[in-house]
């Protein structure tokens, strides 16, 4: 990597669309209004498991303003991204959880559409159901699928998920002590601000979908496949997006329902979920029951780890259901068996670092407890067992986890503040805790196009959707840096499959790496063409030229220079640079971003109230392209962790199988008052494979946050909480005043 001083990379740069977003000028999908547009609503199953015997829509159709009603008996459309291991339709029969879509109505306004839902008469034949994942695995449990409730692998995913290395038996023999315990996490919803919304319009056989998606290219491919359309006849647009955290990847059932309603009525249709639809109609994070067996030496060194777990995927399996919280440690002997299990509950799938925070909670709590029982300071325990650059199974392209631990601990004042668990006196108990986290840093497919205009301005075209991460700004920064053209001369177009090139999708923290890499390559393509055109006038060879701050100059003699506009005179129209890149890891190397989090809490032993008083998040994300948005990412991840640790859980009423808190008020996502000032620390790190040395930022911050808070509560109270969320009720039950 070139060690030159960056011009834009690494400098706090305001979002290029920040003004539009905060002034309400940005047109989100929900803002799209088309002439003659209809509004749709979805009818959902009130039963956890039932066969639909008949649907009578005649009363609904007679309601003035109702234009179409679609359901399982008249609309058979597969929802490809809705089921990884089973064929899932947009309307399924039988219905398999309270919330499974039964029908959708399009009407002239959404109130009429909603009125119509009540007029649809559905005859159900109830089937036996099961809500609890461990129950569901028992032989006599009601079967949700013919082969049973343990999800069946399909080649892309396995079931159970198994991973093993080293010699487990020997590892436990080598241990001085073996610890066993079980940790439980609950289903929490992504709870993104923007509810799911889609607008569809057909025009001469071509379908345009204004989606709220984390990937226009995937969404286009999904819609084309599910509706049997050629790719050329599907256009997906998403200019501004209001958050998804993993549950707006690809195309979802509502995109397909909207398209089918628009087709049935020959009018544009908008379908916007209610907040309740959003909580129960899509998915949240998979709940888990994690049974650990950990062998350690007297000094805390891990010799072996065995994890047997059940993850509750709900009625359909959309994604892996894996648990990866052991990823950040040097574990010589390891075995993991995770059983993704079906129940008649709301679906669980991707939510920011899907397999991590619940699993880090389990494993980092386990290590914190072992440290306590061995009389080892948790700091030493985590430092000693951390994943290293190249040790055991691991060989990373870069790893600054040690710096995260050391610098984070210093910043929070670990040595001065740590005390024996439960030793704090008085009713307001101070505690301090830490945990390690991170996320895979991947390399892969990216594409970008850059048009260099005759006036020296550049137009960058990328397929990315900015899901709140600041990705548009990041791409503009990378383009500016790679081209050598100031930010104010960069224009960015994104989020329209008719215009912009392919994007992998804004999920799995890949945008900066995948598409960013392509932007750099496209910029190099532009520069090559530019230098060829400018070389004669500068009387130099093209390879001797450079471009910086919009000036083309001779490297060996910077006084020989041309402003970009002048250099472009020899170009007839514009320079079109493009690149599709698909880098791969060398054998035996893998990428990972790392983090160490620390926090202090005060636990009121009288009320069970936990107040987080200080939070320090130290991250190794490689070069930080834009510290402003990167810090926001870290803070956002921590906030979600606070909710998951202390308050959030989607509650399914056991007697009725109905979710009882599917709304912002009762789901208790944190407010500003729950969140302390979060101090973000990016340690010095530069990855040899990432764009300008960058790795990933989006998902790592949520991974250690839940465990960090749980460990701080242990330090404060001396009580280990093994089930999330750690509510005042649970604290009061265990803490003696």
């Amino acid at each position: 990597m070139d060690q030159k001083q960056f011009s834009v990379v690494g400098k706090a740069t305001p979002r290029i669309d920040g003004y539009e977003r905060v002034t309400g000028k940005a047109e989100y999908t929900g803002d799209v209004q088309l002439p003659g547009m209809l509004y749709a609503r979805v009818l959902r199953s009130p039963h956890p498991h039932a066969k639909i015997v008949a649907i009578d829509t005649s009363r609904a159709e007679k309601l003035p303003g109702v234009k179409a009603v679609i359901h399982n008996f008249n609309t058979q459309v597969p929802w490809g991204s809705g089921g990884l291991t089973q064929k899932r339709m947009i309307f399924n029969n039988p219905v398999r959880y309270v919330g499974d879509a039964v029908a959708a109505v399009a009407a002239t306004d959404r109130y009429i559409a909603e009125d119509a839902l009540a007029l649809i008469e559905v005859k159900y034949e109830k089937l036996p159901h099961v809500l609890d994942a461990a129950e569901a695995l028992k032989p006599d449990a009601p079967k949700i699928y013919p082969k049973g409730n343990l999800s069946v692998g399909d080649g892309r995913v396995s079931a159970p998920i198994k991973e093993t290395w080293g010699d487990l038996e020997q590892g436990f023999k080598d241990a001085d002590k073996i610890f066993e315990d079980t940790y439980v996490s609950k289903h929490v919803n992504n709870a993104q601000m923007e509810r799911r919304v889609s607008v569809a319009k057909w025009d001469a056989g071509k379908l345009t979908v204004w989606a709220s998606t984390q990937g226009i290219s995937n969404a286009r491919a999904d819609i084309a496949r599910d509706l049997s359309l050629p790719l050329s006849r599907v256009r997906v647009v998403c200019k501004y997006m209001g958050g998804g955290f993993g549950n707006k990847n690809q195309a979802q059932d509502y995109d397909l329902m909207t398209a089918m309603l628009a087709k049935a009525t020959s009018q544009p249709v908008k379908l916007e979920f209610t907040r309740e639809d959003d909580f129960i109609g899509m998915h949240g994070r998979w709940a888990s029951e994690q049974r650990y067996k950990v062998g350690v030496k007297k000094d805390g060194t891990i010799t072996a780890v065995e994890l047997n777990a059940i993850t509750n995927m709900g009625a359909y399996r959309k994604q892996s259901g894996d648990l990866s919280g052991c990823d950040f440690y040097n574990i010589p002997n390891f075995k993991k068996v995770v059983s993704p299990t079906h129940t008649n509950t709301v679906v669980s799938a991707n939510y920011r670092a899907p397999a991590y925070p619940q699993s880090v909670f389990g494993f980092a709590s386990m290590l914190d407890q072992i440290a306590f029982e061995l009389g080892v300071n948790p700091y030493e325990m985590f430092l000693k067992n951390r994943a290293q650059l190249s040790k055991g199974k691991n060989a990373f392209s870069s790893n600054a986890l040690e710096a995260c631990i050391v610098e984070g601990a210093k910043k929070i004042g670990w040595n001065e503040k740590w005390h024996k668990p439960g030793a704090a006196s008085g009713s307001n108990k101070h505690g301090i805790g830490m945990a390690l986290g991170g996320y895979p840093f991947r390399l892969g497919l990216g594409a970008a196009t850059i048009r260099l205009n005759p006036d020296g301005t550049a137009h960058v075209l990328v397929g990315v959707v900015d899901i709140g991460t600041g990705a548009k700004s990041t791409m503009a920064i990378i383009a500016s840096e790679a081209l050598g053209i100031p930010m104010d001369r960069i224009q960015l177009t994104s989020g329209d499959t008719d215009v912009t090139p392919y994007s992998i999708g804004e999920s799995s923290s890949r945008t900066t790496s995948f598409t960013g890499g392509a932007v750099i390559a496209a910029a190099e393509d532009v520069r090559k063409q530019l230098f060829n055109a400018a070389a004669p006038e500068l009387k130099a060879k093209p390879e001797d030229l450079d471009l910086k701050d919009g000036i083309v100059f001779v490297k060996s003699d910077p006084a020989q220079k041309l402003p970009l506009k002048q250099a472009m005179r020899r170009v007839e129209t514009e320079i079109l640079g493009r690149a599709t890149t698909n880098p791969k890891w060398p054998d035996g190397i893998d990428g990972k971003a790392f983090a160490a989090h620390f926090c202090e809490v005060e636990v009121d032993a009288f009320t069970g109230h936990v107040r987080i008083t200080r939070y320090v998040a130290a991250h190794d994300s490689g070069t930080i392209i834009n510290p402003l948005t990167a810090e926001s990412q870290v803070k956002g991840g921590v906030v979600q962790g606070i909710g998951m640790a202390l308050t959030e859980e989607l509650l399914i009423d056991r007697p009725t199988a109905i979710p009882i808190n599917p709304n912002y008020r009762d789901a208790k996502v944190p407010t500003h008052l729950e969140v302390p000032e979060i101090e973000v620390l990016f340690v010095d790190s530069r990855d040899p494979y990432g764009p300008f040395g960058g790795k990933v930022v989006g998902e790592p911050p949520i991974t250690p946050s839940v465990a960090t808070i749980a460990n701080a509560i242990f330090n404060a109270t001396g009580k280990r909480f093994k089930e999330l969320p750690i509510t005042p009720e649970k604290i009061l039950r265990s803490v003696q005043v």
Partner: protein
Amino acid sequence: MKNFENIDVKSVKEAVGLLQKFQNEKKSAAVVGGGSEYLQLMKVRVATPDFLLNLKTIPGLSYIKEEGSGFRIGALTTLTEIEENKAVQEKLLFLSQAAGEAASPQIRNAGTIAGNLCQRPFCWYFRSASHTCLRKGGEVCYTVAGDSRYHAILGAGPSYIVHPSDLAPALVALDARIKVAGPAGEKTIPLEKFFVLPQVNYRRENILGPAEIVTEIQIPLPKTGSKGFYHKMRERQAWDHAIVSVAAVVQNGNGVARDARVVLGGVAPVPWRAPKAEEFLRGKKIDETAAAKAGEIALEGARPLKDNVYKIGLAKALIQRALLASV
């Protein structure tokens, strides 16, 4: 939300007249002040009125007036206005604080004092369109077999809701009175008598008749030597209801409590006054032991459900703290 007709009413008399008219015509109607609570019920179709009477267009119903013996607060006064009123802050102990702890700033800007006292329960079964519970004309209170972590431990059955108001316990502790207008004219009653237990009526939380509306709250000035404390425990520090709250007022004199009020929120279907604890405190020096004992007495007879046993200890602890802070 079901379609409805909005009527901007211009006077209390008009509102009462319209409510009577709709009642006679067997049409459903509801009154709304700030709308922050009622519109939520309409959105989930738990409330489906044909007519909505907008009281905000009645002139002169929003005021805070200090008179010789106390305060008069108009029904449409917002929680923010009460929270920020200087005289209320100075003279009515914790009332400003209790108003400021309700809901969120946005809701407090819209929500009114009358609306806060008349709000419907925030029980998740009551607020779920899928559960036709006892309070909505159904057969069962789903809480008993279901999830009762936030429900009542005192004074409940056959319905187990808790009264969600922050202002109610505070105002009952301050001996407030409530003025109600109806077809028979106006009446003013102690606020404590305004609320009804499910044993009396499990479909309603207060005594308001179908054509009655709240017009004013009257609060006497606390007696000399009075000190009070409002303590609200919740899981989230904004936009969350009390798991348990305590409003305590102690009239201090000669090193003892000459009189005391202990009113609990979040534990019963009404703001729950603890008269035996109050009686115990009278004439006592309030120290750790006495305050703890008062908590014990207040929770005597608590009958928790399977998920809310923790509220008993919590309520005792909050009472102790509130009393110790009131001397």
